[in-house]
């Protein structure tokens, strides 16, 4: 099989020495992690490797020799390096040598048992140690068994480099028995802000956990669980959103460290999402409270409500006349029209009663925007629902009336044909009616049929209005969902440090020379933005339409009440 040698590009200019790394026999590949320089004592090197193996659970061993001769070939050094093969017995013993500044290296292997007579081809793959160590492969494979035969080659290599982090912690300026060359970090001093934040995060988390436990204790108390109040909380979307954010805060402030990459990214995404949310909310608040915007809003609210009520009154007057040229039943028209007009009158009086308090209520409610833009949007959606409550009431009245009429009509239609609905058997059966039953039934059927257009028109108009309000509310909730679930930290990471989120690798063929091994450069292939969003999306209490289009149309036709948006926590019908 072809022998693959993964060589870190940072060791290209290292002094001569021996190569240490991991040998994966199933794939015939050698992952080189570092170069140990002369002078060294073989016993100390073996002991050091044993210690590293214990900590990292990666079978690190001496793989071969590295000869970087700046001048002409030194024969004695190459013989010395061959003799090293006998001290550190490894099969096969890899010898890499570089002459001067030449790009093309010599790579050969020494086999103890020369049983395979064919020339084994060698492929030299350069990799960037720091990027491979920090990156994570997607989709993440099970790393329970590092040396499994069916584990993909790439994940084995990535795991080897990532697990050997302790090997890379030795500094080149350390005065120890072993001098190595590998990737060096910039040290703790380079990122002092990060270190300070790490130190400060522990007491901050504990404080946050304490506060959150207080708040959740208050929320779960019995006082707030009585029937009218609990019904109210479930209907208001603001309470749902606040509960959702409380959950998020609990996830962030938990003292358990994140176990794996997915949990860490989830925590980071929640943190950034909360930060952006609060920042946008405070921005909104600063705009609202500057130049007395709240006062302007409150001043325009009453005239807008008045205007909506006037429009509704005009609409009802139009319906009571001859709408679109249709001829309505005069009496029923007048009854329904006057009934709804009286409702509007009640509503207007109520709004005018509340008008002196509106500004103060808005002022205090606007303060809650500091909890986040999503909370402000949910409050807006709730205010819209409250202000258009009369439209919703009209829709319910119209729907109920229409529904009753449809049911009556269908039942009397069956009577007209001599059939009956058998409740026990849930099917239509024939039935012999008396003459007077038939007479009254047909009479009622005719009355209901001729009153149908009037009721249907009122039902249609108010359903359309209600659907309009529902669509507006739906759009606001969509925006809230977007802010809730977008993984901003992952997107920024993909933009700035694209090697951290790897979809795979890509190889580039470097300059070749005949007789020398094939040279490839392995680079990280980053994940596309679409897959980043899909993999790291935060789960929400998503509101999605409960019914498909056909069942929605069927419900509209029959006059059943529609509750289009379903929340995840609600019980299924």
């Amino acid at each position, binding site marked *: *099989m*072809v022998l*693959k040698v993964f060589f870190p590009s940072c060791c290209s200019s290292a002094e001569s020495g021996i190569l240490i790394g991991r040998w994966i026999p199933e794939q*015939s590949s050698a992952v080189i992690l570092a170069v140990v320089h002369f002078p060294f004592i073989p016993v100390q090197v073996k002991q050091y490797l044993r210690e590293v193996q214990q900590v990292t659970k990666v079978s690190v061993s001496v793989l071969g020799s590295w000869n970087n001769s700046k001048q002409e070939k030194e024969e004695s050094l190459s013989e010395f390096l061959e003799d090293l093969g006998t001290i550190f017995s490894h099969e096969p013993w890899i010898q890499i040598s570089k002459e001067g500044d030449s790009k093309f290296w010599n790579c050969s292997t020494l086999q103890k048992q020369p049983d395979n007579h064919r020339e084994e*081809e060698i*492929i030299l793959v350069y990799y960037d140690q720091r990027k491979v160590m920090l990156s994570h492969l997607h989709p993440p494979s099970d790393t329970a068994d590092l040396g499994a035969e*069916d584990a*993909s*080659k*790439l994940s084995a290599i990535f795991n080897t480099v990532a697990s050997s982090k302790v090997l890379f912690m030795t500094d080149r300026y350390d005065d120890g028995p072993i001098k190595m060359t590998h990737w060096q970090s910039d040290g703790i001093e380079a990122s002092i802000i990060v270190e300070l934040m790490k130190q400060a995060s522990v007491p901050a988390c504990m404080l946050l956990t304490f506060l959150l436990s207080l708040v959740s204790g208050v929320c779960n108390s019995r006082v707030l669980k009585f029937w009218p109040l609990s019904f109210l909380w479930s209907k208001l979307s603001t309470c749902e959103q606040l509960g959702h954010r409380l959950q998020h805060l609990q996830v962030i402030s938990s003292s358990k460290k994140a176990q794996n990459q997915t949990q860490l990214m989830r925590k980071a995404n929640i943190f950034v999402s909360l930060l952006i949310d609060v920042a946008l909310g405070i921005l909104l608040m600063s705009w609202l409270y500057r130049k007395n915007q709240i006062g302007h809003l409150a001043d325009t609210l009453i005239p807008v409500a008045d205007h909506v009520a006037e429009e509704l009154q005009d609409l009802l007057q139009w319906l009571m006349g001859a709408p679109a040229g249709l001829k309505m039943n005069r009496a029923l028209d007048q009854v329904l029209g006057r009934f709804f007009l009286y409702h509007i009158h009640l509503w207007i009086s109520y709004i005018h009663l509340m008008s002196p308090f509106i500004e103060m209520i808005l002022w205090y409610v606007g303060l809650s925007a500091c909890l986040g833009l999503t909370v402000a949007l949910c409050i807006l959606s709730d205010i819209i629902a409250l202000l258009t409550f009369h439209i919703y009431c009209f829709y319910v009245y119209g729907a109920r009336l229409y529904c009753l009429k449809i049911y009556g009509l269908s039942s009397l239609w069956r009577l007209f044909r001599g059939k009956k609905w058998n409740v026990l058997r849930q099917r239509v059966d024939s039935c012999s009616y008396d003459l007077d039953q038939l007479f009254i039934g047909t009479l009622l059927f005719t009355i209901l049929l001729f009153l149908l257009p009037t009721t249907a028109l009122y039902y249609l108009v108010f359903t359309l209005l209600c659907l309009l309000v529902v669509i507006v509310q739906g759009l606001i909730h969509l925006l809230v969902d977007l802010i809730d679930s977008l993984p901003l930290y992952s997107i920024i990471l993909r933009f700035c440090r694209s090697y951290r989120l790897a979809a*795979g*690798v*890509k*190889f580039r*063929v470097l300059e*070749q020379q005949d007789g020398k*091994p*094939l040279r*490839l450069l392995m680079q990280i*292939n980053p994940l596309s933005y679409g897959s980043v969003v899909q993999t790291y999306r935060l789960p929400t209490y998503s509101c999605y339409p409960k019914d498909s289009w056909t069942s929605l149309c069927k419900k509209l036709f029959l006059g059943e009440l529609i509750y289009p948006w379903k929340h995840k926590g609600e019980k299924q019908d």
Partner: protein
Amino acid sequence: MEERRYRSASGAPLALRCRQHSASCRELAVRCPRLQLRSLSAVTSAVWLAAYGLFVLCQNSMVLSAAIFLTLIGLIIYLHFVKIDQESLLVIGSLGIQVTSSYASGKESTTFIEMSQVKDVVINEAIHMQKVIYYLCILLQDPQDPQGVSEVVPLFQSSQPRLDCLIEVYKSCHEILDQRKAASQSDGVK
């Protein structure tokens, strides 16, 4: 390194370049025809004429600047996301197969498939509307079922070379893939 001329399924001229880097590494690149100046000028003039017609109707000069803006944005989007200049296949025996598409703006999108996942490389027939077209594809191994195929990855989708070009690529790929089979068989015999 050799370059040969072929035709695509729709008749456009293509160039196939085959490079052998080493005994087990081969690169096959299909170069698509470049963006034609006459089609570009035709589309631009059509859009600008339509914008000028709208301007004459509604006397709003915003229409003209919007048309220029749209043309520029449309061209950039076309060059960066739609127009593929070259599609190449890099076969490295015992490592894997790498499929690269390079766009006209210089962007490259790469996928690397490991050799353990590759079951075979075959030429398939497809009936599309009134045509029968041939395409080269990589069959991926199903990890659970050794005989099954989990996914089919079609290659050279935007250049769509004809059967003669595909046969060349197929033969080249199989020379390297068969080495792997021979190696595994000899290992098994031992």
